[in-house]
């Protein structure tokens, strides 16, 4: 590919240029959320569905700062522990915004909030049956990933490391293995801590990266959002370029001929 060639990607028939998907949680306030998302260049943002605060109905809402007309909202099932809760939550999200593209996550208990795969399978089945296009957060388990794809999930999103841990991509071999076998997009979701982690995920061949805390919990979220944008692009280009082989011995970069002699 050349620098000018289109390198867009697709989920469930929708085409996107940016390979960085960002969360909208954990920011200081909605102004900072909006500024960081703008700087990230993301086109898809994850959002949660919660009860409105009846005692403060005029409180500013996320939609006032991060317009669903500009960004593709990807509602999540955070906090849902059963298939029934996930379906209810995303039906509400669909009515609130009219989207079918959703992020399924069913988490186990603290301290790891590890994907609860039996509950995830059950919820995925129920959501797909209800007409949703499911991007699914999952363990870095190639068998689970394949099974989710076979069920009809539109993207497979294994964790790099536990949510909010900032530990990076701790098992790059399994992420590569999942990507090699998948016919739908694979995104590393969760665990990214800094720009080099996002670049690594892309160098492994992932189609995109999903992160939230790495930007929101940086000392300067807007600058980190810029860094993440550059890292995802750099990692993608490095993947497309194809890295040189690793070599245990040195191989001089400068020619040995034509040296001056006394």
């Amino acid at each position, binding site marked *: 590919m050349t620098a000018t060639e289109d390198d867009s990607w697709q989920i469930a028939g929708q085409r996107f240029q940016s390979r960085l998907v960002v*969360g*909208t*949680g*954990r*920011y200081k306030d*909605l102004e900072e*959320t909006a500024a960081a998302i703008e700087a990230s260049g993301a086109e898809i943002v*994850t*959002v*949660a*569905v*919660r*009860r*409105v605060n*009846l005692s403060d*109905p*005029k409180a500013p*809402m*996320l*939609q006032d700062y991060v317009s*669903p007309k500009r960004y593709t*909202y990807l*509602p*999540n099932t*955070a906090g849902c522990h059963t298939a029934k809760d996930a379906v*209810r*939550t995303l*039906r*509400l*999200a*669909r*009515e*609130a*915004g009219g989207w079918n593209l959703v992020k399924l996550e069913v988490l186990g208990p603290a301290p790891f909030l590890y994907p609860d795969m039996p509950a995830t399978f059950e919820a995925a089945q129920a959501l797909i049956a209800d007409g949703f296009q499911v991007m699914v957060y999952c363990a870095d388990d190639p068998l689970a990933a394949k099974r989710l794809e076979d069920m009809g999930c539109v993207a497979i999103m294994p964790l790099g490391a536990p*949510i*909010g841990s900032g530990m990076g991509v701790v098992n790059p071999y399994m992420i590569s293995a999942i990507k090699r076998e998948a016919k739908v997009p694979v995104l590393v979701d*969760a665990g990214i801590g800094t720009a080099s982690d996002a670049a690594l995920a892309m160098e492994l061949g992932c189609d995109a990266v999903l992160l*939230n*805390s790495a930007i929101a919990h940086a000392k300067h979220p807007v600058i980190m959002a810029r860094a993440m944008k550059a890292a995802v692009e750099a990692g993608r280009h490095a993947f497309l370029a194809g890295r040189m082989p690793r070599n245990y011995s040195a191989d001089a970069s400068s020619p040995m001929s034509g040296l001056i002699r006394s």
Partner: protein
Amino acid sequence: MPFGHCTATLRPMSGQITVSVNGETRHMPQGATVAALLSAIGLDTRKVAVERNEEIVPRSTYATLALTEGDTLEIVHFIGGG
């Protein structure tokens, strides 16, 4: 039933119904619609979604769907999340 917790002082006036909204007890006039409830709370209908007794209320029916005694309603919106 949500109104099982009502004390005498909270008992609705006649011509009123009691419903549960996001876990809170509220009184509305008999025949009030979902749109009337949202308006009474002060919510922008374009930014919320409503579930009534675990069934989605389509936006197109807000103005016509009348609430009934004991309804359990959930009103949600999008917030920041990962």
